[in-house]
């Protein structure tokens, strides 16, 4: 007899139930509190490690800011495009990636998208830790932490999430947001039991039979080629299934998906989903950017599935590859399509989840902006003013350019000779506090427990992001 990995898990769960493991007692039994959540809301958080450069995400046109176009022309010229004015209009996340911009069932068409520009820590020094340690550990100005709980762990306690499955995260960086010594035991138990109940979803026999065999095989072959590994039981094999399922299952929701062709197809990335019957057989040109995209899609599928099928209220994924010091143009050209696909699919599923009684928000955050001018070896360095994207039926209308009027764009060219970084106009805590207050109904006391430090005065103007 051969015992499989899944068999072991099943046996483990049965044994755990029979044995009554003391270490797996849920918090309810530990402290006697009631854990009825204050709302039915759910949050999907995507953390892009590094900076999704706002000046590359929503790029000004050359007509609006010719100085800026000259300063960043080499960054803004993607593969196959040499005309800077075209590049400036084409190579940004929103303008090129039609799934977000043009899809009639997408977030923008439904007035469910908000983009906050020039957001960050007004006192930041362009460090990875400027913003996120404040969220994670409630860092004081002197650098000492106020809490061992991460911000979402504090939210879970304040908002009364179900301790049996309070939250979940995929990826090492965002784990800091969910960390809590008190919640580990319940977390471990819940995640085990969840996977036991849904063990097929990441297995070799996906329950959603949407993958054309040729597509599945091509994705799988590409994964094997990239990783140099083979076999359906390997991690790449699992990722291939998850990637295909994530994208295609989402598109099936709006079947038939209006396959609007992109305005041009100059960008090179591994698998063009719109051409699923004509997949490239060779390894992509940019293996650097190949893994993060796939990794991101697998993570999104895993996390969204948790959100859809359990009492889990908050999930998060973190995706590396955004600290693009060198070769920003090529790296973004490979990464942006994956973000567009992820946002498109997540929005469709969030909308359906909302219709089922769980208003769902997708929050995309990055760490900082990037400098305006190009540095000594052809990239950009850490800036200050960043970008945040918020999607879902909980979002009030579309605002593409918060604080970014034409006057601001004109100033960008001047920044090349000056402070060299887009300034912060909104403290990042403003959005988090608005969300926690509006959607999770935190009162003042609870808010202080979750975010002990308020936004800096002068950078806390209400944005009205959420309905």
């Amino acid at each position, binding site marked *: 007899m051969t015992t499989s990995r899944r068999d072991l898990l099943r046996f483990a769960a049965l044994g755990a139930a029979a044995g009554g493991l003391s270490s797996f007692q849920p918090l309810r039994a530990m402290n006697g509190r009631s854990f009825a959540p204050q709302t039915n809301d759910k949050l999907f958080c995507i953390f892009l490690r590094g900076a999704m450069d706002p000046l590359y995400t929503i790029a000004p046109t050359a007509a609006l800011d010719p100085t800026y176009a000259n300063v960043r022309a080499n960054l803004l010229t993607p593969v196959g495009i040499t005309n800077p004015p075209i590049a400036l209009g084409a190579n940004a996340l929103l303008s090129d990636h039609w799934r977000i911009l043009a899809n009639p069932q997408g977030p923008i068409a439904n007035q469910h998208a908000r983009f906050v520009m020039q957001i960050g820590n007004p006192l930041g020094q362009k460090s990875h830790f400027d913003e996120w340690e404040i969220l994670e550990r409630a860092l004081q100005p002197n650098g000492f932490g106020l809490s061992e709980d991460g911000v979402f762990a504090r939210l879970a306690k304040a908002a009364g999430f179900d301790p049996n499955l309070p939250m979940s995260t995929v990826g090492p960086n965002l784990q800091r947001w969910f960390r809590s010594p008190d919640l580990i035991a319940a977390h*471990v138990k819940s995640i085990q039991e969840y996977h036991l109940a849904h063990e097929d979803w990441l297995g070799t026999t996906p329950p959603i039979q949407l993958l054309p065999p040729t597509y599945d095989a091509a994705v799988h072959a590409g994964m094997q080629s990239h990783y140099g590994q083979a076999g359906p039981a390997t991690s790449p094999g699992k990722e291939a299934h998850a990637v295909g399922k994530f994208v295609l299952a989402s598109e099936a929701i709006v079947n038939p998906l209006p396959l609007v062709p992109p305005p041009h197809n100059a960008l090179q990335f591994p698998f063009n989903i719109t051409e699923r019957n004509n997949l490239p057989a060779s390894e992509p040109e940019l293996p650097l950017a190949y893994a993060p995209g796939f990794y991101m899609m697998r993570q999104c599928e895993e996390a969204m599935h948790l959100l859809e099928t359990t009492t889990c209220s908050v999930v998060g994924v973190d995706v590396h590859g955004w600290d693009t010091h060198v070769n920003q143009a090529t790296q973004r050209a490979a990464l942006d399509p994956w973000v567009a696909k992820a946002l498109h699919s997540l929005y469709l599923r969030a909308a359906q989840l909302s219709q089922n009684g769980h208003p769902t928000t997708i929050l995309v955050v990055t760490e900082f902006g990037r400098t305006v001018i190009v540095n000594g070896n052809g990239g950009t360095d850490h800036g200050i003013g960043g970008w945040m994207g918020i999607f879902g039926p909980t979002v009030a209308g579309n605002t593409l350019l918060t604080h970014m009027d034409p006057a601001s764009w004109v100033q960008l060219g001047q920044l090349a000779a000056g402070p060299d970084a887009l300034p912060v106009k909104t403290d990042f805590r403003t959005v988090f506090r608005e969300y926690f207050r509006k959607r999770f109904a935190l009162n003042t006391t609870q808010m202080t427990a979750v975010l002990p430090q308020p936004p800096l005065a002068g950078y806390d103007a209400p944005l009205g992001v959420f309905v």
Partner: protein
Amino acid sequence: MPARTIAPGRGACLSVLAAGLMSSAIAQTLPPIVALACVPVSHMGTVDDPEAHHVLNRLTFGPTSDLLAAVKATNGYTQFLQQQLAPGGITENHQLLSIRAQINLPFTGIPWSTGPLVDLDDIRLARLAHATLSHRQLNEVMTEFWENHFNTDFHQLSLWITQKVTGTPPQYINTYYPGTNTQHVQCWMEWTQNEMFRTHALGNFQTLLRELILSPAMMVYLNTAGNACVTGGAQPNENFARELLELYTMGKYHAVTGLANYDQNDIDKVAEILSGWELAKDLVNGYPLVNPQEIASGHCGGAKTLFGGTVLIAAGTAAQQLDELVADLTAHEPVRDFLCRKLVRQFVADAAAVRGGEDDLVSAMKTTWGTQGNLAEVLCILCSSQPFQAATYRWQRVRSPLERVTWNARIWDSKPTTTNNVVDPISFQQPLEDVADMGQALFAYMTPDGFPLASVERLGSSTTLEGVIAGGDIYRSLAPAIRYGFWPWPFSQTPEFYPYVTSVLTTAADQANPTLVAHTILKRLYATDGTPSVDSAAVATALGNNLQPSDLASYGSDLARGIAIAFSFRNATLK
């Protein structure tokens, strides 16, 4: 509170430990045999099982039966620490040497263009094999510590290499070295850096830091290669300068004062100091290497003032300013504080490393650090201190996935499969996959902060789930260790992982006793079966009443259930 002895005696020199036979294959990479000024405090009293587990959990990648017995002998702990702090005197495991030879490490003797190619799985296997098999365990623990501290990502090296291409096919750098495979070059970069860490793991930090800055993997990963100071134009790339200060040497805030250790001006100046380097194509002894080379025209050579005027760097060439920066950083107080606290976190506990934790120990380590960063001396102070030995800090550190896998292999005295006395690398395939599934992609962790060191950051949902699954893999393969004669695979199949282990239950009656089996498993893993988090009764219940020697199938299911339960205890993730 009574005063505690933190620092062991200093001033005396240990006699140089007798050097054992060393393989010529790795002799050039061995650390020098050092004479320690620090004499570890003789351990007082008997080392019992829990303490021996603790010592070996921290100083090695996991206890083995032999090491447990050695440490428990009279003065065994002190002797073991002395030996491990002088790794050059320890004869290396011949099985490890066999694996290195099979993989053609460390890339000697065969030019890239014609030699056997090395791929990512090869160097991952080598890294796991060193951790599992090396007799120089403390040196390997520190090698892993520096590898993670100065993390680089294999995948992010390829673009730089590919950019050298002008011909086709694009995956070869034909312009410089016809026929050279990109992944092979990536492996060379990563593995030579790993060997550098192995060489200097217990040497001095100043040398290690300089070698690190000019290691091809780091130069490419954080953009020192090609970084230029363009007069009247672009400023140098700040990527490495920022991480050098923030992650590698001092951290943003001082752990005691809470003051910022540096500001943006310091980053700008350090970036200028580190400008003017390129990885140049070169032929060295017939090998096509990429070596660091100064580009005078790209260096900002003026004098600089750093850290509020406390450090002055004189005008000079790129190499001169680099040497000065490295020397000044090594002796800088915030650097000593930051790195000594990180070592305390690694070897003692997270709580011991923060302000107000074990500040006296940190202070003693900082003094011993000196101006060059005497790592063996600092570790001698640390690992023979009372905080290191304190029972309150046992089972407080969360293992990394690599540590979990190696611990499981070593705790059961596992041996890799051999054919005609040659180690079969297949033994490491399943463990390697388990490490990756738990979220630690060796040589491919993307961000420069490396796999999290803080315990609470190592526990996430996906890591937890995969840890349990990996535990199932490991214990399915280790079933023969529990019960003599048990064999979970058809004999025609290739065993997946370490099948040849010593059985600990040798009679049918013992094997059929769930309580005894549970006790044996847990005692072996944790040196105890009676703590609140290690409950042998739960495992015994899971094992059930079907432990009949004649019923292998049933026994297999029950055993699998029981061992998976045992591995699900929280202590399975802790050390």
